[in-house]
């Protein structure tokens, strides 16, 4: 039972970061209809930028954290303007390939600046674990869950109440109607990419604090696909629920199945789930079904 709870907790921690990254995913898809294969690389860039600020420029962590958020927003703006805007109205395959190309550019940028070696964050969170009943949790886990939940809550409120959030929802619903109501669709697209980069960057900082930082962090982006599909591609609550479910599922398989079948099952099981969902309920738990008319 203790083992189960331990797995559950670590699953929720990873799951909350999945949820954060999935939020960015769902957001971009909802607002712009683009699926972003570079989301994992956004996360990696966030982790590296914050790491560089902390360990190379010796800026205190929390200031570096805020600066990272600023940097990711600016990068999001640049990417939207340079690469994504010309692609409006292009077929899906082009857009997919464009974000894949973007991911290799970002990966290569990180490799050129920081090299391929593993890096670790200096000790930021106290290593004294906290005991919650039988479960032992390290503090960095609590911080990441806390921040993930904070950001998820903030963005949920943002979409519900702020005028920019409502504008984004309007664009997601119907671009032409939004345009005729005086909403700048371009601005909304730019904002969607900024927010997606921002949440991925925040996820990256915490993931970097939990694990080591290296280029394979980019792979995280592909592992978020099962989470968003499970939740429904265009649903923000779906992204959160899907992220948590996939995180827990992964931890459970890692704990119970890996010793029996052999390593790597943990990595592949979310994709098996993905195929099953796509076969049974392709629009996920909360997604809107696309209906096509001739």
């Amino acid at each position: 039972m203790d083992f189960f709870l331990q797995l559950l907790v670590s699953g929720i921690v990873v799951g909350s970061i999945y949820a954060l990254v999935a939020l960015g995913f769902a957001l971009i898809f909802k607002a712009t209809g683009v699926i972003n294969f570079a989301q994992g690389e956004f996360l990696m860039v966030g982790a590296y930028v914050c790491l560089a600020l902390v360990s190379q420029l010796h800026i205190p962590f929390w200031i570096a954290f805020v600066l990272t958020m600023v940097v990711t927003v600016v990068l999001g703006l640049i990417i939207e303007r340079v690469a994504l805007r010309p692609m409006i109205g292009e077929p899906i395959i082009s857009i997919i390939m464009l974000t894949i190309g973007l991911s290799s550019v970002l990966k290569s940028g990180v490799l050129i600046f920081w090299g391929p070696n593993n890096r670790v964050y200096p000790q930021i969170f106290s290593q004294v674990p906290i005991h919650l009943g039988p479960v032992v949790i390290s503090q960095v886990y609590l911080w990441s869950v806390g921040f993930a939940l904070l950001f998820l809550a903030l963005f949920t409120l943002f979409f519900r109440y702020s005028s920019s959030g409502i504008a984004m929802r309007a664009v997601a619903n119907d671009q032409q109607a939004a345009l005729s109501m005086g909403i700048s669709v371009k601005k909304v697209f730019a904002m969607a990419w900024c927010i997606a980069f921002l949440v991925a960057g925040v996820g990256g900082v915490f993931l970097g604090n939990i694990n080591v930082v290296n280029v394979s962090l980019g792979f995280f982006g592909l592992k978020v696909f099962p989470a968003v599909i499970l939740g429904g591609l265009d649903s923000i609550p779906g992204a959160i629920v899907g992220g948590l479910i996939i995180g827990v599922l992964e931890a459970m398989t890692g704990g119970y199945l890996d010793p029996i079948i052999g390593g790597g099952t943990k990595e592949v099981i979310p994709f098996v789930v993905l195929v099953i969902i796509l076969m049974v309920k392709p629009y996920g738990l909360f997604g809107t079904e696309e209906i096509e008319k001739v």
Partner: protein
Amino acid sequence: MSAHICGDYKTSYKEDMVLFQTKFSKFWITAFLIALCVVPIFLDNYTLYVCNMIGIAIIGALGLNILTGFTGQISLGHGAFLGIGAYASAYLVMDLGIPFFIALPCAGLITAMFGMVFGIPSLRLKGLYLAIATLAAQFIIEYLMVHMEGITNGVLGKMVDFPSFMGFSFDTDLKYFYLVATIAVLATMMAKNIVRTRSGRAFIAIRDQYISAEVMGVNLFKYKLMAFAFSSFLAGIAGSLWAHYVTIITPEHFTIGVSIQYLAMIIIGGMGHIIGSIFGAIFMVLLPELLRVMSGSLSGHFPMIVNLFAAIKEGIFGLIIIGFLVYEPDGMAHRWQMIKAYWKLWPFSY
């Protein structure tokens, strides 16, 4: 060679369907084929190696182009299908002792079967969702390649012999070139012929508007599966040729990166153009080799360039994809047609 006619003077469908429209193109195709036979004799082993890789890539890219370029079904799992072909052929030849020339088509057929299985979801899924489903297929097949150690020997890699036929072994780059070139020409002919048949027109109809295609009486399920089968058949052939050429295969050779490279080939070359697959394959194989040569000559001035080579290669790869998508979305095949159209009436190009 008064070969070019300025305009269409065709009076029957049969004339319109002819593969080589003019004497001019017939002449150049023949010249090209003769060159393909003669020139390799004078090439060194490195150049031949690059040519062989191009040939194998052309076969794979043709397959992907039929599926993605002509039928409009996005596949992010082409690398894994290459892997299935490679392992199938390796298993048939090395473990079961079947001769290579039987194992090669068998590998293609086995891969086609796998492709059809993973094509089944395509009936319900399209666009993005299909892309993600094939991405899942890629990861699942990769996992199987690592874990089915009885067949694949897992991460340790599987040794494969050069192919031989009646005691004649294709063990040098030159001999292998003739094998690859023959199969690449056959594959090109096959692809070219498929797209001008009923099935090919059905593929294009599905790509352009699947609902209208269905209304016109195109059986979506049948033709989508057929496209998956053709595509993975060619992927399997390419994988098999690749396995027998590099002689040791591990699951790392068939990752998502390979799938992306093949997609890049058809995008850069031109989707929905047979010649696009050829241009794209040549481009994508030559690019890293050219970069290697360039970084080698620059390393005298900038020693750190050798360490950064992998990173720079990745970055340039990404930039080229983005550049093509933004500035030349129809790929090199489109540019090629423009050049041809310009010279057709030159110097009176109006």
